[in-house]
């Protein structure tokens, strides 16, 4: 062994010590500096005390281009950025449409085939075309955006960008110069043309093309152009006869026939404005490769603009400095807004919006961290999942839902609402057993079989067991609160329920067994051959027909003596089965696009048959009377006549029972006491501008709930020491032991 001289080893030691201490200083220092007083605060220290709303998203948005975006996850962002002509009143229920960026509700004129104008209440069958004239408010500005930036000579600043210009550019904020311009009618026309763009694949193109003159031919022209030209297509060179710019602030849409529901579509970003400059800006070579597209960076006039888009981790909306003068509503639900006034939702009447400067959305894939961060005060609102239902909510003996004591103590509030949706068990009417086949007798027997099943499957029990009561058993396809739905005794499904003691009571199993016997299956066996009745449920793993639910369903069917078989399959094969008509029973759901009964009742309209027409009628139900009534009803204005028509349609459905009306889901949402002006309502999606946060109260609560506990670290250190100390002693004893001593002790380590 060679010993180094003392002076040679010291500097090396010093350097090592310095490096080690510098490293520790940097790491510990940065940790403490970043943590500040709250060690578990997940947000940057610079954001503390700011007027920011913190929330989370679980699914990354697929599309933010208003021509493609259609899901609720995406609406959370897009509706705050892009403003369609119309919007729903934030507080009023039932939902009411009101002007958004439009100056007034659109003026609608109807004409017959001869071009003669018809009165508003004219028979829909006589209407050859409907003309919607929309005037937008002057003076509305777009958000600051590089697409509007101009040079000194007035030409676009960021046009014909070279690869060199785009070097280092990763986000929209990397363009130092921005500009803005006034919203014009031509921007809405441009967006309507984009519905036909062959590369954008708008999900509503087919639907709108049925009504909008020239949209299909425009699509063909654009498809031909797209083949010739792989780059950006200038839509301003193409005409769309059904849409025209009247003047700078007015445009006109001509639809074929009558389609009153079109007003609802005008409240969606599909019909919002898209400036051609933005289209051209993002259409430049090199932009798509950098994810610089309208699908990633939407441009709008809304209260917020997207300033950070990292859908893997965090998305940030910041207040649009150019947002128009917009004030909080002064009218609400109930007589003179009494319900909302009592709930404190009219306290900010007339105040300018938006209230919040910034909205930070953090990606949370798992429910447990999401829930815990909500309880720590790091998220301002949360849903209630099955995992945390018992912690958040208690059920009273009367079946009422209230907050748990712990939640009450934290000042958390519970908001509930029935969603405009339905989950149902569909019977495939093309199936010989549940559909009845070709003969009248067969169909009659199948009808009684379906009714028997509908009585036997106790949806009240299903909702109670599997949804913690978060659903309302459905009496018809129309959710409560939507025009056409009836309440109380008039609203019950009399085939399934009786009205007793002031509430609906499900008919007994005896009734179901009687119907089953009349259907030719007494005791669940064929009256002629004695073969057992076997019903098959096609389902997907994790869907409404998963294992525990299927077991429950099997138990219910056993009560009738019916054998129940679950045929699980993956999602794609399940969809294929439904499309091909080879499923027998299946669970399906539908979220309404807009609050109109047409959007629910069309799910059973014959020409929407899934097998014949690839439509949305998954049961392939056909009833000429129902179809005729649907065609009349959809063009009617809300009123007694429409209600009567709907009543008849619903009565037909209850009698024919092509669906077992399952339940309308009830959404439960929790919010901290420092969040104000939140009102549940899934139709209203531009909600962020209405909300307000009491920042000081939030800071105080966070500080109170998140005091770091240091003693566990000391305990852990002591425990480690308790484990290490005997080991060290053992080692020292071993190292000092001599061979003789070791032998004398008779052992060795």
């Amino acid at each position, binding site marked *: 062994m060679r010993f180094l001289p003392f002076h040679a080893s010291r500097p090396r030691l010093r350097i090592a010590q310095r490096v080690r201490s510098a490293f520790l200083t940097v*790491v510990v220092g940065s940790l403490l500096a970043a943590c500040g007083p709250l060690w578990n605060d997940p947000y940057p220290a610079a954001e503390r005390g700011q007027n920011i709303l913190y929330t989370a998203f679980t699914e990354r948005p697929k599309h933010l281009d208003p021509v493609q975006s259609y899901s609720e996850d995406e609406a959370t962002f897009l509706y705050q950025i892009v403003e369609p002509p119309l919007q729903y009143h934030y507080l009023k229920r039932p939902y009411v449409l009101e002007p958004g960026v439009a100056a007034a509700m659109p003026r609608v004129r109807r004409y017959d085939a001869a071009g003669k104008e018809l009165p508003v209440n004219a028979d829909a069958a006589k209407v050859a075309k409907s003309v919607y004239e929309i005037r937008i408010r002057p003076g509305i500005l777009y958000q600051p955006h590089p697409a509007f930036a101009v040079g000194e000579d007035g030409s676009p600043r960021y046009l014909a960008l070279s690869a060199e210009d785009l070097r280092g550019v990763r986000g929209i904020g990397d363009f130092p110069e921005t500009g803005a311009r006034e919203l014009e009618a031509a921007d809405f026309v441009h967006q309507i043309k984009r519905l036909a763009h062959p590369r954008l694949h708008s*999900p509503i193109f087919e639907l709108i093309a049925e009504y909008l003159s020239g949209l299909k031919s425009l699509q063909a022209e654009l498809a031909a152009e797209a083949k010739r030209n792989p780059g950006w297509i200038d839509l301003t060179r193409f005409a769309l006869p059904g849409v025209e710019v009247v003047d700078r602030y007015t445009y006109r849409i001509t639809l074929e026939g009558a389609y009153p529901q079109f007003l609802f579509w005008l409240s969606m970003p599909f019909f919002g404005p898209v400036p051609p400059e933005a289209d051209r800006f993002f259409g430049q070579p090199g932009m798509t*490769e950098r994810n610089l597209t309208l699908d990633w960076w939407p441009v709008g006039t809304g209260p917020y603009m997207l300033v950070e888009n990292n859908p893997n981790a965090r998305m940030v909306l910041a207040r649009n400095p150019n947002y128009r003068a917009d004030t909080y509503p002064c009218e609400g639900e109930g007589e003179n807004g009494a319900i909302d006034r009592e709930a404190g939702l009219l306290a900010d009447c007339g105040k300018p919006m938006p209230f919040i400067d910034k909205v930070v959305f953090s990606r949370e894939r798992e429910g447990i961290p999401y829930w815990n961060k909500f309880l720590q005060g790091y998220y301002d609102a949360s849903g209630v999942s099955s995992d945390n239902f018992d912690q958040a909510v208690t059920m009273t003996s009367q079946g009422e839902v209230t907050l748990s004591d712990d939640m009450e103590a934290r000042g958390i509030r519970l908001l509930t609402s029935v969603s405009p949706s339905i989950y149902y068990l569909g019977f495939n009417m093309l199936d010989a057993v549940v559909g009845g086949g070709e003969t009248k007798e067969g169909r009659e027997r199948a009808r009684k079989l379906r009714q028997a099943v509908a009585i036997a499957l106790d949806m009240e029990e299903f909702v109670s067991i599997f949804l913690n009561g978060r659903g309302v058993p459905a009496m018809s396809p129309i959710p409560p609160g939507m025009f056409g739905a009836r309440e109380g005794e008039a609203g019950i499904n009399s085939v399934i329920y009786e009205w007793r003691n002031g509430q609906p009571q499900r008919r007994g199993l005896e009734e179901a067994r009687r119907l089953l016997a009349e259907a030719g299956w007494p005791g669940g066996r064929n009256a002629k051959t004695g073969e057992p009745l076997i019903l098959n449920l096609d389902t997907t793993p994790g869907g409404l027909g998963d294992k525990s639910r299927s077991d429950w369903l099997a138990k219910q069917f056993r009560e009738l003596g019916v054998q129940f078989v679950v045929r699980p399959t993956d999602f794609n094969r399940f969809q294929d089965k439904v499309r091909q008509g080879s499923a027998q029973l299946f669970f399906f759901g539908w979220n309404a696009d807009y609050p109109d009964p047409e959007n629910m009742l069309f799910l059973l309209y014959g020409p929407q048959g899934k097998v014949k027409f690839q439509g949305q009628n998954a049961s392939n139900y056909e009833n000429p009377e129902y179809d005729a009534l649907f065609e009349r009803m959809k063009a009617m204005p809300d009123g007694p006549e429409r209600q009567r028509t709907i009543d008849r349609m619903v009565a037909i459905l209850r009698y024919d029972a092509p669906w077992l009306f399952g339940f309308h889901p009830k959404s439960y949402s929790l919010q901290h006491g420092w969040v104000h002006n939140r009102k549940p309502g899934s139709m209203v999606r531009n909600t962020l501008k209405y909300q307000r946060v009491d920042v000081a109260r939030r800071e105080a609560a966070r500080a109170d709930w998140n005091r770091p506990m240091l003693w566990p670290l000391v305990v852990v250190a002591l425990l480690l020491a308790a484990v290490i100390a005997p080991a060290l002693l053992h080692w020292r004893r071993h190292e000092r032991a001599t061979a003789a001593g070791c032998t004398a002790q008779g052992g060795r380590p």
Partner: protein
Amino acid sequence: MFAYLVRRVLYAIPILIGVNMLTFVLFFVVNSPDDMARMQIGIKRATPEAIERWKVERGYDKPLFFNDAASGTGRLTDTIFFDKSLRMFAFDFGRADDGRDIAQEIRDRMAPSLAIALPTFALGLFAAVSLALLLVFFRATYLDFWGVVGCVAMMSISSLFYIIGGQWLVSKLWALVPISGYAAGIDAARFLVLPVLIGVVAGIGSSTRWYRTIFLEEISKDYVRTARAKGLSELRVLFRHVLKNAMIPILTGVVVVIPLLFMGSLLMESFFAIPGLGSYTIDAINAQDFAVVRAMVFIGSVLYIVGLILTDISYTLVDPRVRLE
């Protein structure tokens, strides 16, 4: 050695083609191009015409493997498989089905994945090897016995338990670090402390037992007795001699894993909201995005092959008797 490496790289080409083909077949057995189109356009109002347009635009309207309608080599080249696979070998991954650049996504997500995987790997390896050597040092004592019991107990517990328990205890109850989230730069440290700690603790039981077995086998050999006879301390014997000679089995398990650290950890990234490559793969599978799934499987295969080659090279570094020929 150079010839050996060239040969290994050439062997990799048919392996990668095979993996690519297998991925392709498995993916399209479960998902058809129609399903993919429906997923992108939205199931709610996807019409057959819209689906067809989507397929044409993305090149999914062609036959999968063999094009009867084409002639000559076109029968093989004018297919989805050829179109989508060939560019991959030039590491051109193209665009995801939602239009986003896959290579850019991978570049963005690689750093967060490595930020969690590298420290977990390095600290876990260090802790497991050290602990295993200590157990060997204290072999046949109560410390060894309870150490092994502890290891068995730790490896019997699901990693999900460590994650949920760790988040509840350290972040919620003690409020010491954020429950989940991520930040770039040095600020990432406070988000990584807990997942790294949990990653190390969750893996330490099985690793320690494995290394302990290797070391125990080594410690009974003659050279160890000789080292002791020379008067070396037990620690020196273990860390200088036993550890060095046990490197071959350790490297076999360790080096091959290093390149795969780029691929991220599915569970950790999911629970700790780390925007890495593990969650990217899961998102792509859920969205039936073939382009991303294919790219990630391809990268995984390449990295695995690289790992195997590095393992071979590492043998020559720790054992002079090994020659790559």
